[in-house]
């Protein structure tokens, strides 16, 4: 079994964060989203991984993952270039995959339970493909699978008006090499892409059985800022958090706090977990860091009240105010305008930024 990890896409819904890097490298609980996928594949016993690169962030992704040895896996890079659809991405991996089965994992997705159960379910039978499903409240908004009593998929329907089930496809698949012939037979859809659901439908029509696995834990597509915050909350809720850094006397801490070895919570600061604070970051006197916040490396926080937020890193946040439900890009600084005249806020805001003042 091999892994194919999709890391293309423009990240347009995450602008301006993605103006300077790919969406798969946005950190959740101070770890790039893509690393969760690598770890999930490794946990499922998959150590040969093809990473599909699009037109954006190729060098950054290769710099992070390298040859995979630091994760105990072997990585091959596959440059898809134009985003011609998930089936095109899979097709580009044909030479890499060879005659093996493979898991296809969307690199901007995180799921609590990993892919081990999906892989084991697929391997227990003789299937052309296996798909991960999750129950959703609004099936009209998703690609939906109809399944029989044994869990075999009988039909896939894209955003149905009258959904037969509430089981949505969540972007985790296992394929036999038979999918490559199905992909060869596809034509681009109305949006100019080769659709993976069309390839699965063709496998069904060619007589292959399609396994389904219903994912019960949480799953997040981290495509939008609010999704990053939600994923950050879910991961902090679940992950074991270890305090290795310095908590000075007089600092008030409560709950689970991940504090990197070189991070400091100074006297007079208040931190309430679950929180993650990365290396070389200092939480200074007068600061409140509230639950579900991750502060990236090389940052200084002073006088601010911040909660349910992600600070990616290399930031100075020293304003006396409250920041909630926010995503701050790398190197973003928030200072005080208190002493400045004329009175008012001073902003240098990039394209596609969103501010609520």
């Amino acid at each position, binding site marked *: 079994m091999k892994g194919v990890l999709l890391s293309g896409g423009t990240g347009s819904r995450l602008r301006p964060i993605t103006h300077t890097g790919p969406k798969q490298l946005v950190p959740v609980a101070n770890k790039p989203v893509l690393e969760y996928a690598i770890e999930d594949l490794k946990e499922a016993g998959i150590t040969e991984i*093809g990473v599909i*690169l699009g037109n954006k962030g*190729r*060098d950054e992704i*290769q*710099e992070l993952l390298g040859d995979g040895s630091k994760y105990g896996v072997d990585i*091959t*890079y*596959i*440059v*898809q*270039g*134009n*985003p*011609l659809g998930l089936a*095109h991405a899979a*097709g*580009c*991996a*044909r*030479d*890499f995959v060879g005659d093996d089965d493979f898991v296809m994992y969307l690199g901007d997705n995180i799921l609590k339970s990993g892919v081990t159960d999906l892989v084991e379910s697929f391997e227990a039978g003789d299937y052309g493909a296996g798909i991960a499903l999750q129950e959703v409240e609004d099936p009209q908004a998703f690609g939906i699978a109809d399944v029989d009593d044994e869990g075999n998929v009988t039909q896939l329907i894209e955003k149905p008006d009258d959904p037969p089930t509430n089981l949505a496809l969540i972007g985790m698949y296992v394929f036999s090499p038979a999918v490559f012939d199905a*992909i*060869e037979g*596809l*034509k*681009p859809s109305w949006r*100019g*892409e*080769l659709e993976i659901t069309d390839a699965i439908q063709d496998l069904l029509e060619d007589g292959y059985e399609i396994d389904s696995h219903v994912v019960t834990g949480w799953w997040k597509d981290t495509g939008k800022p609010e999704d990053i915050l939600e994923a950050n909350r879910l991961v902090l809720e679940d992950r074991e958090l270890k305090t290795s850094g310095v908590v000075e006397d007089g600092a008030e801490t409560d709950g689970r706090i991940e504090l990197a070895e070189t991070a400091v919570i100074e006297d007079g600061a208040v931190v309430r977990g679950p929180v993650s604070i990365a290396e070389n970051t200092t939480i200074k006197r007068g600061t409140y860091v509230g639950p579900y916040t991750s502060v990236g490396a090389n940052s200084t926080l002073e006088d601010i009240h911040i909660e349910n937020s992600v600070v990616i890193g290399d930031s100075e946040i020293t304003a006396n105010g409250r920041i909630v439900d926010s995503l701050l890009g790398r190197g973003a600084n928030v200072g005080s305008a208190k002493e400045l005249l004329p009175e008012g806020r001073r902003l240098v805001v990039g394209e596609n930024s969103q501010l609520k003042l």
Partner: protein
Amino acid sequence: MRIITHTCPACGTVVAANELERNRVMKCPGLGCQEVLRFEDLSEDAREHFREHWDRYQI
């Protein structure tokens, strides 16, 4: 749709034909690899197929 790729002989990075066609001659996108890749590295059959169906490989 036929998906055509080429594997860099130096580092093993796989490159889709649309990427090769767009650049014609390019440095391998594998980080640190100095190999030069060309659209002409594809087989004649693959190049002909790509040219005949060029529009399918654009977005």
